C-alpha cells in the first residue's frame, strides 16, 4: 500500500480524529482529554516534519499531491507547500498542540469542544496547503463555521452570542465577496480550472484585475483584521474560550492575510500594484490606531485583541510595500505574531481562570504565584515590542526596510506604534505581574500545571529561537517571497 502524502495526513487527521472522538462516551473525560492531547501532539510533530524537510533550495511547491475531484468543472484536490506556507503549517501545529494543552481545564462537554476544535484545525491546514482555489474556499468555510459554535457555546457568557454572531457575519460576508471575485477569475481565465498555479499564468487583463482585486483582497483581509473591517476581531477574541482565542488570533487571522496574498496579490498582481499603494494607508491606521486603542484598554484580553489588530496591520503593510523586504518581513511576522499572540491569550486565560477578572487595575503581583507564566508573558511582550533578540524584531525590521523603499513617510509614522506598543506592554507587565497583590486575589492564586508550562515553553522557544537565529525561518520565507516577487514582475 502506498504511504499517503504527509500533507493529506495533516489535513485529514484532525477532522477524522474529531469524528472518532464523538464515539467516546462523554463520561470518560480522561480518555477524551488524553485522546485530544495525542492528536494535538501528532499534528505538531507532523508539522515539524513538513517544516524541517522542506528544502528552501528545492522546487517551489513540495509534498505535492493531486486528485481529480470534479473534473468537469476543473476542480481538484491539489495540495503542496511553499516557503511561505511551510511556516504557517508549523504555526498551526504549534498552536493546536499548545491550545489542546491549555484546554485541559475545559469541563463543559469537552468531547464536543475538542471535536469542533479539530474540525477547525483541518480547515486551517487545508487552506494553507491547498493549491486549488475551490478547495481553498472549501477549507476556508470549514475553518470559519466551527468558530461560531466554539464561541457561542464555550465562550465568555456575557458577550458570546453577540461576538459569535458578529464574527461569523463579518467573515461570511467577506468570504462571499471573495468568492464572487474568485468565480470571476475562473470564468475570465477561460482555462476551466481552479488550479492556482495554472491561474497564475492566466494573464488577466489589467482592467479585469483592477476591478476584481479589491473584492478578493478585502474579502479575505477581513479575516486578517484590516481596517475598517477589524472590529469583529477584538470582540471575537475576548468572547472566545482560551484555546479558541489562541487559534483565532494565532492562526485564523493569518488565514485571512495568507488568502489575500495567495488569491488576491499572486493571481492578480497588476491589480495589486494598482490598489495596494492606497491600501497601505488603511494598514497604517491598523498599525498605529490599533496600538493606541490597545493602550487605553483596561481589559487585559481586549488589550491583547487590539494588539493583534495592530500587528496584523504590519503583515498587510508588508504586503503593500510590494518589495522583497516587505514580503520577507510579512512572512516572518505571520509566524512570529501567531506564536506570540497564542502565548498572550494562553496567559490571559491562565490569569482569568484563577483571578476571575481581566480588569488590569484589579490584578497585580502575580509573579509571586506564577513566576513561570510571568516570564513567558515578558518574553511574549518583548517580542511584541519588536525588541531585538526576539522574533518580532526579525519580522518588523525588514517590513520597515521595505517601507523605506516604497513609502518612507509611512515608515516614520508607523514607527510611533513601536513606542506605543512598548508603553502598553510594559504597563501590562508592571500592573499584572508586579506590584502589590490586591487583597481580593490573595489566597486564590496558585501556580499553573506542568503541562501548561510546557505549552508556554514551546511557544517561547520559537520566539527566542527565531530572534537569535533568523536562519531557522528566513531561508524558507525567502524562497516563497521570491516567487511572489516574480509574479509581481520582479518589483
Amino acid at each position, binding site marked *: 500500500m502506498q504511504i499517503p502524502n504527509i500533507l493529506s495526513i495533516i489535513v485529514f487527521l484532525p477532522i477524522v480524529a474529531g469524528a472518532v472522538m464523538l464515539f467516546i462516551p462523554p463520561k470518560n473525560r480522561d480518555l477524551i482529554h488524553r485522546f485530544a492531547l495525542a492528536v494535538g501532539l501528532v499534528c505538531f510533530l507532523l508539522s515539524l516534519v513538513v517544516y524541517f524537510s522542506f528544502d528552501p533550495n528545492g522546487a517551489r511547491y513540495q509534498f505535492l499531491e493531486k486528485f481529480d475531484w470534479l473534473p468537469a468543472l476543473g476542480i481538484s484536490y491539489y495540495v503542496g507547500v511553499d516557503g511561505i506556507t511551510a511556516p504557517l503549517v508549523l504555526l498551526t501545529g504549534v498552536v493546536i498542540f499548545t491550545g489542546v494543552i491549555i484546554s485541559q481545564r475545559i469541563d463543559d462537554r469537552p468531547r464536543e469542544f475538542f471535536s469542533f476544535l479539530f474540525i477547525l484545525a483541518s480547515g486551517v491546514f487545508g487552506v494553507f496547503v491547498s493549491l486549488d482555489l475551490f478547495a481553498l474556499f472549501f477549507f476556508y468555510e470549514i475553518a470559519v463555521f466551527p468558530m461560531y459554535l466554539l464561541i457561542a457555546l464555550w465562550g465568555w457568557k456575557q458577550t458570546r452570542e453577540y461576538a459569535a454572531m458578529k464574527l461569523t457575519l463579518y467573515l461570511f460576508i467577506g468570504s462571499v465577496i471573495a468568492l464572487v471575485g474568485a468565480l470571476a477569475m475562473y470564468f475570465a481565465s477561460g482555462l476551466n480550472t481552479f488550479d492556482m498555479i495554472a491561474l497564475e499564468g492566466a494573464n488577466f487583463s489589467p482592467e479585469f484585475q483592477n476591478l476584481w482585486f479589491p473584492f478578493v483582497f478585502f474579502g479575505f483581509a477581513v479575516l486578517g483584521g484590516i481596517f475598517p473591517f477589524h472590529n469583529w476581531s477584538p470582540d471575537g477574541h475576548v468572547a472566545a474560550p482560551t484555546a479558541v482565542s489562541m487559534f483565532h488570533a494565532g492562526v485564523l487571522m493569518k488565514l485571512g492575510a495568507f488568502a489575500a496574498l495567495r488569491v488576491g496579490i499572486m493571481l492578480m498582481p497588476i491589480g495589486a500594484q494598482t490598489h495596494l499603494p492606497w491600501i497601505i494607508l488603511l494598514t497604517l491606521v491598523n498599525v498605529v490606531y490599533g496600538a493606541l486603542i490597545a493602550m487605553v484598554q483596561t481589559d487585559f484580553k481586549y488589550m491583547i485583541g487590539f494588539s493583534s489588530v495592530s500587528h496584523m496591520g504590519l503583515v498587510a503593510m508588508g504586503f503593500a510595500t510590494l518589495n522583497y523586504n516587505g514580503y520577507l518581513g510579512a512572512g516572518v511576522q505571520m509566524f512570529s505574531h501567531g506564536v506570540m499572540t497564542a502565548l498572550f491569550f494562553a496567559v490571559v486565560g491562565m490569569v482569568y481562570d484563577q483571578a476571575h477578572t481581566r480588569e488590569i487595575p484589579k490584578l497585580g503581583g502575580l509573579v509571586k504565584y506564577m513566576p513561570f507564566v510571568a516570564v513567558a508573558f515578558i518574553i511574549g511582550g518583548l517580542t511584541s515590542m519588536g*525588541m*531585538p533578540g526576539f522574533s518580532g524584531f526579525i519580522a518588523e*525590521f525588514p517590513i520597515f526596510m521595505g517601507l*523605506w523603499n516604497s513609502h*518612507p513617510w509611512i515608515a516614520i509614522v508607523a*514607527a510611533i506604534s513601536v513606542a506605543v506598543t512598548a508603553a502598553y506592554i*510594559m504597563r501590562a507587565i508592571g500592573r499584572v505581574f*508586579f506590584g502589590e497583590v490586591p487583597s481580593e486575589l490573595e489566597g486564590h492564586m496558585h501556580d499553573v500545571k506542568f503541562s501548561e508550562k510546557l505549552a508556554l515553553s514551546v511557544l517561547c522557544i520559537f520566539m527566542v529561537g527565531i530572534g537569535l537565529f*533568523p536562519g531557522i525561518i528566513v531561508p524558507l520565507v525567502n524562497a516563497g517571497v521570491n516567487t511572489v516577487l516574480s509574479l509581481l514582475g520582479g518589483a
Partner: protein
Amino acid sequence: MDFITDHLLSFILFSPLVGGLIVLLIPGENKDFTRRLALVLSLIPLAFTLVAWLGFGAAPEANGFRYQEQVNWYPAINSSYHLGVDGLSLSMVLLTALLSPLAILASFSVDERVKPYMALFLALETGMLGVFLSLDLLLFFVFWEIGLVPMYFLIDQWGSKTGERELWSGMKVSARGYASFKFMIYTMAGSLGLLLAIQMLGVVSGTFDMLALFQSWPSLTGSLFGLSIETVKAIAFWAFAIAFAIKVPVWPFHTWLPDAHTEAPTAGSMILAGVLLKLGAYGFLRLVLPLYPAQAQLYAGTLALLATLAIIFGAFAAYGQRDFKRLVAYSSVNHMGFVVLGIAAAAFAAGTESATIALNGAILQMFNHGISAAAMFFLVGVIYERTHTRDLDEWGGLFPLVPVFGGLLIFSSMSSLGLPGLNGFVSEFLVVRGAWPIFTLFTALSMLGLLFTGAYILKGIAKTLHGPLNEKWKGHITEINRREIAVLAPLLLLMLWLGLWPAWLLNVINQAVVTFFG
C-alpha cells in the same frame, strides 16, 4: 586554544550570558552560593578581556579593528554577526568587564530573589559588551536595545522600596516603578529615530556592515526620497544624535537619569553611571563622527552648547540636592558634559592636533567617570544600607564614627572633583586643552562649571562627614566592612594609577583616535 583565540570576542561577549543562565538553572536556594557563583562567573569575561588587552598590539588588524569575527546572521537583509575592537572599544570593554564583577560583589547585600537578580546582571553585561563589540549596525542596535530589559527589571524590582510619585492623573505609583518606566520609555522612544535611521541607511546602502558604511555613506551624493542628500543626512544625523544624547545624557534630555539612578539598587546605579552612559558617548564616537563628518562639523556648535549647559546646570542641580544619591546622579550629567564637549570639539576641527587631544581626553574621561561614578554610587549605597536614608541633612559629623569610610569617600570625591594626581584631572585637562582653541567661550564657561563641581562635592563631604554629629547615629552606624573595601580597592587603585601614569590607557586610546579621526 586556537578556537579560543579565534573567537576571543565571542567568548567575552557571551560568557556573561551563559553565566547568567548557569546561575538561574543551578538548583538550590543557598543565597551565599548563588552570590559567589555569580561573582566567579563574572570574572570569566574579565579574564578573556585581559587576554585580549595583553595581546592587543600583536593581534592581526584589518581596517583598524582587531580580533575580528564575521558570521552570517541575517543574510536576507545583509546583516552579519561582525565583531571587532579598536582602542576605543577595547577600553570600554575593559571598563565593563571590570565594573561588572565589582557591581556583583557590591550586590552581596541583596537578599531578595538573588538568582534572578544575578542572572539579569550578567545578561546586562552581555548587552553592554555587545554594543562595544559590534561592527554591524543592526547587531549594534540589537545589543543597544536588549540591555534596557535587564536594567528595567533591576530598577523596577530591586530598586529602593520607599518613595511614591504622583502622576498627572493623581494616581500614585511607586517611585521605582515610575523611574524604571520612564527610563525604558524614554530610551526606547529615543532609539526609535535611531532605528528608523538605521533602516534607512540599510536600505540605501544595502549593507549594515559598519566598515562598509564608513566608506560609502559619507560620500553618498544625489537625492533620496525626493529630498537632497544633505537634508536626509541632516535628519539621520539628528536621529542618531538624539538617541545617543538621551543615553549620555546631554542636557535637556537628561531628566530620566536622576530618577533612574536614585531608584536603582546600588549596583544598578554603579553600572548605569559606570557603563550605560558611556554607550551614548560611544555611539557618538563610533557612529556619528565617522558616518556624518560633515553634519557633525556643522552642528558641533550646538552640541558644544548643550554640553556646556549640561556641565553648568548639572553642577547647579547637583549642588541643590538634599538627596545624596541624586547629587551624585546630577554629577554624572556634569561630568559627561565634558565627554560631549570633547567630542563636539573634535567634530568641529577634525584632523587638527587639538581635536586629537580633545578626543583622547573625552575617551579617557569616559573611562574615568566610569570608575569614579561607580565608586561614588557604591559609597552612597554603603551609607544608605546603614542609615536607611539618603538625606544629607540627616547625617553630619559621621567622620569620627566611620573614619575608614570617610577616608574612602573623600578620596573618591577628590577623583570626581578633578584633583591633580588622580584620574579625573588628567582627562578633564585634556578635554579643556583640546577644546580651548576650538570653542573658547564654551570651554571657558565649562571651567566655571568646574568650580561648582568643587562646590557640590565639598557639600556632599561636609554634610556627611563634618559638622555637628547627629546623635542618633551613635552606636547605630558600623564601619565599612571588608567586602565593601574589596569593591572599592580596585577602583581607588585605578584612580590613583590613571592619575599618575595615564599613558598605559592613553596609548591604546590614541591608536584608535589616530586611525579614525586623525
